């Protein structure tokens, strides 16, 4: 009913674009109207649930109110059984996100075969190396647990696996053991095995990670556990007088929380180096054990994905006195703001460097905006991503004249929603934490955004509905999206998604327009 009312307000020309699926609801509505509509939408989706579930889900859905310190939703709480949560697990957060990209270490998916198989090579953590010889990111190492390993324990098998890795992959610089669910349930002592084998191999770095999938409520705890494993099994084992293999400079920084998806960390690093800084480590995209070990020598840790690596940044601040600063390299507005923020930690040489970089790329930014903004102006976007992008990419869309009308986190915490509320979303934006298939479909169907940005599990659902879509975890096999070079790709990709001719062809010409049918059914 509500959508129909909104439609009546539209001018004939808007009605026309509406039929071409190019509408933008927000343009003709006041904030109050949008707020009322969004609140009604939330009420609508809650109706489907059994009472207990409705009460729980109600706390995760809200309409953002300008001036509030957070988005008014609960987060980082257990998902409800049976609702089709989009979330993953702690193993995904540790092996899949934090540890997996460290290229010169072998990461064992310890347990049954599936977890390692489903996460094999799918995150696009780019790296340079000789795979299988000195780099191992896109190999699937698993202990492939069988029933006897469950019954008798897997420690003996793990010992043998470590020996076999040493023999067949002699140039590995370290090994991590990424626990799958059964490890914690059958009482294996992977820490003892790691210690013993490390000693046997003359102090080799072997890191046991307790990231069993049932721990915590999402990927998020896996990030935390992985961070703690770096602290306990790498930092705490560093020789106190250990000198880095390079001469320190006052401009040494570490990139923290960039997984180099499609090369993101590279298109970020180039800007930092152009402004005069020296990047001594990448965490963890295209990263190496040596870089992890050298990071305590950094003068500043710059943190992109706050959610997955704030823990180790805080630890390094406390233990080594290294300050850290969050930054955002999506879209020219946030990039310039971030370059200046980072430069603020250094002397005038770097501050001038930041200005020089901003100026250098301004013609590119102007050209990209001149080309794409007219094609994207006023288009609406709904996002649902992990722990950073639901807020971080908003600026990039706004640089292109687009508007984010709904967003939510798969595994964000309250501090993410605070940052979102205080720096990113507009008044009356629809907020959905740990959204599930039912809710997300319903919201999109009713709000009819011009673009949805989410994951592979959502992609085809919305495309079937005729809504343009971009995967915002993997960049839909494109990228990089970070930095100025990445912004050009981002703009191109959003344009090609939204303005693809295919979306005008979803309905057979002999059938009435799909939207009209939707309205008739209201």
């Amino acid at each position, binding site marked *: 009913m509500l959508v129909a009312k909104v439609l009546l307000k539209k001018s004939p020309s808007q009605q026309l674009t509406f039929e071409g699926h190019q509408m933008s609801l927000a343009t003709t509505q006041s904030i109050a109207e949008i707020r009322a509509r969004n609140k009604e939408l939330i009420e609508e989706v809650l109706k489907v649930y059994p009472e207990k*579930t409705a009460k729980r889900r109600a706390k995760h859905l809200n309409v953002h109110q300008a001036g509030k310190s957070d988005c008014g939703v609960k987060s980082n709480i257990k998902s409800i059984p049976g609702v089709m949560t989009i979330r993953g697990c702690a193993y995904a957060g540790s092996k899949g996100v934090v540890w997996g990209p460290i290229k010169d270490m072998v990461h064992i998916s310890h347990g049954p075969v599936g977890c390692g198989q489903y996460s094999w090579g799918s995150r696009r953590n780019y790296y340079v190396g000789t795979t299988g010889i000195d780099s191992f990111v896109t190999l699937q190492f698993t202990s492939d647990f069988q029933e006897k390993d469950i019954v008798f324990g897997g420690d003996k098998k793990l010992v043998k696996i470590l020996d076999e890795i040493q023999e067949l992959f002699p140039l590995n610089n370290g090994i991590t053991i990424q626990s799958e669910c059964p490890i914690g349930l059958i009482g294996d002592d992977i820490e003892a095995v790691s210690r013993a084998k490390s000693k046997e191999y003359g102090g080799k770095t072997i890191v046991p990670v307790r990231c069993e999938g*049932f721990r915590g409520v999402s990927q998020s705890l896996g990030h935390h556990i992985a961070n703690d494993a770096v602290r306990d099994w790498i930092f705490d084992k560093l020789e106190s007088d250990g000198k880095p293999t390079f001469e320190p400079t006052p401009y040494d920084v570490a990139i923290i929380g960039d997984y180099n998806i499609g090369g993101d960390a590279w298109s970020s690093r180039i800007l930092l180096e152009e402004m005069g800084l020296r990047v*001594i480590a990448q965490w963890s995209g295209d990263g190496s054990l040596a870089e992890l070990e050298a990071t305590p020598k950094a003068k500043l840790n710059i943190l992109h994905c706050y959610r997955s690596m704030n823990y180790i940044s805080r630890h390094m601040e406390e233990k080594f006195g290294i300050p850290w600063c969050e930054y955002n390299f999506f879209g020219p507005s946030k990039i310039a703001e971030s370059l200046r923020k980072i430069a603020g930690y250094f002397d005038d040489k770097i501050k001038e460097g930041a200005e020089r970089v901003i100026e250098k790329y301004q013609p590119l930014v102007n050209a990209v905006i001149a080309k794409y903004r007219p094609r994207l102006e006023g288009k609406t976007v709904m996002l649902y991503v992990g722990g950073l992008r639901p807020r971080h990419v908003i600026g990039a869309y706004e640089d292109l004249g687009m508007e984010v009308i709904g967003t939510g986190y798969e595994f964000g915490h309250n501090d993410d929603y605070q940052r979102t509320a205080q720096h990113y979303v507009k008044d009356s934006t629809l907020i959905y934490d740990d959204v599930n298939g039912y809710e997300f479909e319903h919201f999109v169907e009713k709000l009819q955004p011009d673009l949805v940005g989410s994951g592979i599990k959502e992609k085809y659902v919305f495309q079937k509905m005729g809504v343009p879509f971009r995967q915002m975890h993997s960049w839909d096999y494109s990228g990089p999206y970070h930095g100025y070079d990445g912004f050009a790709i981002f703009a191109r990709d959003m344009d090609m998604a939204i303005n693809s001719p295919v979306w005008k062809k979803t309905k057979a010409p002999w059938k009435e327009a799909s939207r009209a049918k939707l309205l008739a059914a209201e």
Partner: protein
Amino acid sequence: MAQSAEHVLDHLELFRGPEYQQMLVKKKIFENPRDPAEVERIKEWTKTAEYREKNFAREALAVNPAKACQPLGAVFASVGFEGTLPFVHGSQGCVAYYRSHLSRHFKEPSSCVSSSMTEDAAVFGGLNNMIDGLSNSYNMYKPKMIAVSTTCMAEVIGDDLNAFIKTSKEKGSVPADFDVPFAHTPAFVGSHVTGYDNALKGILEHFWDGKAGTAPKLERKQNGAINIIGGFDGYTVGNLREIKRILALMGIQHTILADNSEVFDTPTDGEFRMYDGGTTLEDAANAVHAKATISMQQWCTEKTLPFVAEHGQDVVSFNYPVGLSATDDFIVALSRISGKEIPEQLARERGRLVDAIADSSAHIHGKKFAIYGDPDLCYGLAAFLLELGAEPTHVLSTNGSKAWHEKMQVLLASSPFGQGCQAYPGRDLWHMRSLLFTEPVDFLIGNTYGKYLERDTGTPLIRIGFPVFDRHHHHRSPLWGYQGGLNVLVKILDKIFDEMDKKTNVLGKTDYSFDIIR
């Protein structure tokens, strides 16, 4: 700066320019890299017979295995029933993985729910997760059936699905007569093909044997119908449609069990169909009355088929029939069981495949192939290659059993082209890497992950298998039937011709053989 708005460079080109290349060289300083000479030495060493021997001596470590875990197969089978929501009891991350995996292969939505068990459920059991989960799924997604399977977490702590579902029904999660078949699908036993088998057996058992004690067992009254089971198959969309076409041509009354050919190929027309097509629940129940059941994949139905046989039906199984003889056997079996004549059209289709083979066999004859994949697929492809006069030199199946190995060796021994060919059960793609270096072949047949082998060993990859993530839409074309055989033949030939051209296209050097007619 290489980037421009006019010609936007993405990862394919952006990083190749001097700015990024210099940056990456400088980055090396911080990586404490290995001596390039040492990297080169080890790289060469991994190609040797000595390395192969050590590699094959592995007892514990798996590197690049070509198999997934049971619940994936259970989900795949479950969505083949009308309005059915797969419900996997255990940790939720697993379900995110199955859905992603299936979506990446089929480029389609994949709907499935989890009971989202966490630490407390690990301690106290997941009964409450089952009670709440079934209730929520039922209310939100309005399924006609919920098919339950398990992750390894639920299996390790020993949750009892039968009891849990019973209790959930008593608590009103779903109506008492609502269909909730189940199967225990531990990830540490077998592979995804085992999970397919267990789930399908669970569903048939539910309908045929009294719905977990809540209904009378069905009394079989034999009719003339034939049941078909496709098995776990990346080409399910094309294959099941082809089978249905053949059955219709022959006029055979039939039920495709676990028919997921529609749900993995829905149109983009403005509507998301969470459920589409599938074996109706009525047909699933009535399938007990069929005269016979045919499994297209023996190792996907090791439990299901004996279960069906126990109910009095004739059962026949194939090993992913591809090509002439295997399709002949299938068609003849259909005719024998149904008593229907084989229509002339099928004879003509067969003749066209023979025609195509005759036209092209000179290019395939004597070529050596390595194949890996699920056990039935490997068998079917190897049999077809033998028929084409090619040599399936290495046939590797990570989830192949001892029985598979024996059957493969019999097949290889049966043909002059199979002499010197070997089957490798339980091995992985790192083993295959050693095989390809020490006993090179002309072509490799496998799934997307074979591209790493292609890169390392230079063996051209023909993508047939599951998953195929990096090529689109091939799952829509059948590999079964005479038409499917033709499709496989063309896939192989295209690669052979592309390679010939690639090897002869150097101007003034090799291009005397860059023939315009092949």
